[in-house]
């Protein structure tokens, strides 16, 4: 009964989404207030019924209703109750349901928090989001309905959730990632609205920015959690593999980053308008492309859980309609929203343009690498090439290094025109200090010449010292340092926090990549290896029993400088329902180093191959990502996004005179 209720509310949600995508839009063109006003209640209705539908599926999971096919193939009565709940999004159908629930939630959020938006704009935005919901609800109902029943012979027990997904990471990673993916639909809807109205002013950018920041922050967290999950759950000790799935999440992030910066220019200076619109379209299109690539099974990957050509075709159709229609609209309307202000060669606008070009070019490079096997197959007919990490590193790392060089210059420079003398005065010392310290500090600590490390440390210092210098300048004339800090706008603080996160990530990635010690050794009980000041001693393996699995639990005692330090307990689990084997690494997380141990496979007698890693500063990768996301959140809290329309009208020359004190503090 409950699954039928879920199915019914899904159909109701579709009906409401259809109404939402049609009625307010008709209202706009008929100038009918009533129809436009309907957009709000329709959005809340859509959200309520999606939530109900999601709740019904969760109910089916929690009550082991294996007559529902999706539950039967993604759950098991022995599964711990929290994994039963997360199993809701453990497969194709359910994660699609979560996806649409997220679209509905963003739609509802827009209707809730955009009280100061003119009604006709709100109606258009919500309508466009309604269209997106319609597409995916139709797709779900006709090709992948999570409430389908197994009428004839419902199995006594389910086939179990994929063991890789029985993990805390899965509880939080997909919802965050989807929030980010789908969140770009808001920026997309605003962009389409701008094209429809032909009106793209500072107010438009100001409405769009918090939404874009929010989506970007979610996506940042989602990707970081995915990387963290891969790090400890896949048992390889790696945190980024340039796997197609990672790439398709990373591309919208890169374009989203470009969008955030380009929106800043559009808001403050009224230029890059059509470019901003294009980026908004691109960010959401790449999110859809990611969904399509993963769901269609087009590219082999750990995440490709729906290898079904029919579904792939429907998704491709949605993709083509969304991208095709928006680009067509863009071609027709882009000239209308052109910017007019001028800027010079050393203005912040130009540095942000460089930022955008570098981000978009690296996205294009990653896209090419991700799709290359498909292109190759289409051209030569041979499915026999794959693109590995060296390709992506060669493309991505130099571009990012260049990006960081411009990052500090861009964030310290001023709108419209920055004198070269000012830049020199602000940055000369910073540049010299970061290069010198970048060489001296690693050299003093490690006593070896390692150019990539010098470069990475110098670049990270370039960001950090640049931030310090800028804050020093900005607080210099404010009496005390504290009152100076208080005078900084939240969006400025957000920007600097996110940039600091970038520096932390650079340090984390480089130090981990270069100084990790990774040893795969065959160890009999009592044998051990020494890495640096740590000694790892393998104590052997014993059988233990889990709720729905049986495990070989290893014990590795770690000595530090000869003294007893801690014990790592990596496991090798065999799950009852599927018989599949899963490596559970054990990691001691530290601020400056992680100790990682995972069991390989048994090698005769009581010996095992044990994978032991010492990974310095790997924690900083995720720390940096959280700083970045935190920066995004801080920027959203800026006062000016909450100032009402009526109050803002009194502020003269927001976009033209460049004298507004908040201008210097845009992220």
């Amino acid at each position, binding site marked *: 009964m409950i699954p039928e209720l879920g199915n019914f509310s899904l159909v109701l949600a579709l009906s409401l989404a259809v109404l939402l995508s049609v009625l307010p839009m008709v209202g706009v063109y008929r100038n009918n207030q009533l129809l436009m006003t309907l957009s709000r209640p329709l959005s809340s209705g859509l959200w309520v019924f999606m939530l109900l539908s999601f709740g019904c599926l969760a109910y089916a999971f929690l009550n082991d209703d294996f007559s529902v096919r999706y539950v039967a193939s993604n759950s098991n009565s022995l599964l711990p109750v929290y994994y039963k709940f997360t199993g809701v999004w453990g497969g194709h159908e359910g994660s699609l349901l979560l996806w649409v629930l997220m679209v509905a939630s963003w739609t509802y959020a827009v209707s809730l928090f955009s009280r100061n938006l003119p009604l006709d704009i709100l109606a258009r935005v919500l309508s466009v989001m309604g269209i997106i919901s319609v597409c995916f609800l139709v797709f779900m109902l006709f090709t992948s309905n999570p409430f389908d029943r197994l009428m004839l012979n419902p199995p006594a027990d389910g086939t179990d959730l*994929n063991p890789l997904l029985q993990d805390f990471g899965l509880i939080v990673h997909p919802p965050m990632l989807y929030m980010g993916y789908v969140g770009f639909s808001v920026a997309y809807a605003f962009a389409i609205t701008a094209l429809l109205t032909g009106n793209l002013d500072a107010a438009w950018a100001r409405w769009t920015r918090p939404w874009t920041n929010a989506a970007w922050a979610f996506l940042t967290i989602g990707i970081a959690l995915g990387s963290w999950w891969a790090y400890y759950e*896949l*048992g390889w000790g790696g945190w980024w593999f340039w796997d197609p799935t990672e790439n398709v999440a990373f591309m919208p992030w890169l374009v989203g980053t470009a969008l955030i910066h380009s929106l800043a220019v559009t808001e403050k200076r009224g230029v890059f308008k059509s470019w901003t619109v294009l980026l908004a379209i691109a960010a959401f299109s790449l999110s859809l492309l990611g969904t399509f690539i993963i769901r269609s099974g087009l590219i*082999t990957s*750990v995440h490709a859980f729906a*290898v079904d050509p029919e579904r792939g075709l429907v998704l491709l159709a949605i993709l083509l309609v969304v991208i095709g229609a928006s680009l067509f609209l863009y071609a027709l309307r882009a000239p209308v929203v052109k910017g007019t202000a*001028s*800027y*010079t*060669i050393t203005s912040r606008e*130009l540095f942000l*343009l*460089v930022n955008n*070009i*570098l981000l978009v*070019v690296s996205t*294009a*490079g990653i896209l*090419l*690498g991700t799709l*290359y096997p498909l292109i190759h197959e289409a051209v030569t007919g041979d*499915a*026999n*090439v*794959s*693109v*590995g*990490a*060296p*390709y*992506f590193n*060669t*493309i991505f790392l*130099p*571009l990012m290094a*260049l990006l960081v060089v411009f990052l500090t210059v861009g964030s310290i420079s001023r709108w419209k025109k920055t004198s070269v003398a000012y830049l020199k005065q602000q940055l000369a010392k910073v540049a010299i200090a970061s290069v010198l310290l970048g060489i001296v500090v690693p050299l003093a600590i490690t006593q070896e010449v390692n150019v990539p490390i010098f470069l990475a440390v110098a670049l990270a210092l370039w960001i950090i010292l640049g931030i310090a210098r800028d804050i020093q300048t900005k607080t210099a004339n404010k009496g005390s340092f504290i009152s100076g800090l208080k005078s900084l706008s939240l969006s400025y603080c957000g920007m600097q926090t996110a940039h600091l996160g970038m520096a932390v990530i650079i340090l984390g990635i480089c130090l981990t990549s270069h100084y990790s010690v990774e040893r*795969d*050794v*065959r160890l009999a009980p009592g044998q051990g290896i020494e890495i640096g000041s740590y000694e790892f001693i393998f104590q052997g393996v014993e059988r233990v029993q889990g709720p729905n699995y049986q495990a070989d639990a290893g014990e590795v005692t770690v000595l530090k400088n000869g003294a007893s330090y801690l014990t790592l307990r990596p496991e*090798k689990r065999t799950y009852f329902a*599927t018989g*599949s*084997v*899963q*490596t559970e690494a054990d990691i001691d997380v530290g601020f400056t180093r992680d100790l990682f141990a*995972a*069991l*390989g*496979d048994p*090698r*005769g007698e009581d010996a095992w*191959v*044990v*994978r032991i890693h010492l990974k310095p500063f790997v924690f900083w990768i995720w720390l940096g990502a959280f700083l970045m996301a935190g920066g995004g959140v801080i920027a959203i809290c800026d006062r000016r996004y909450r100032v009402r329309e009526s109050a803002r009208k009194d502020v003269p020359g927001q976009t033209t005179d460049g004298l507004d004190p908040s201008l210097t503090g845009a992220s």
Partner: protein
Amino acid sequence: MLAHRQQRLAIVLFILFGTAVAVGLVLVALDEGINVFYTPTEVSSGMVPENQNFRIGGMVKMGSVVKDGLQGAEVNFLTTDFCNDVLVSYSGPLPDLFREGQGVVADGYIDNGGVFQATQILAKHDENYMSAEVKASLDAAEEHDAEVCQQ
């Protein structure tokens, strides 16, 4: 007017610059980043240039996995497309889904003794699902059966 032109010029120059950097990087990167995939039959027939990294894919031959009596974490096994076998040597832990009689893909190169020295073993797909590459390899082996196997 001048500022406007300067601005245009700057944009055009940056786009050219970006494109040039990108094209250069892509060319370099594609050169070193692409792994070509070969089947055991193709490897046996000497189609693969020496000292080149590539991927080999096939099935792990039943009863061919040797773990004991080797140095350290070394393991040897035969990968087969049911037509030709190639000996693979690898040092490290085998993935969870590595089984005799299951598909496997390995990254590495052929050493002077004709042994495939694997730097990475990939068997990360789920049990019922065969990687597209392995499937292609087995299909290709079937097709080649008549021509190559009898040589």
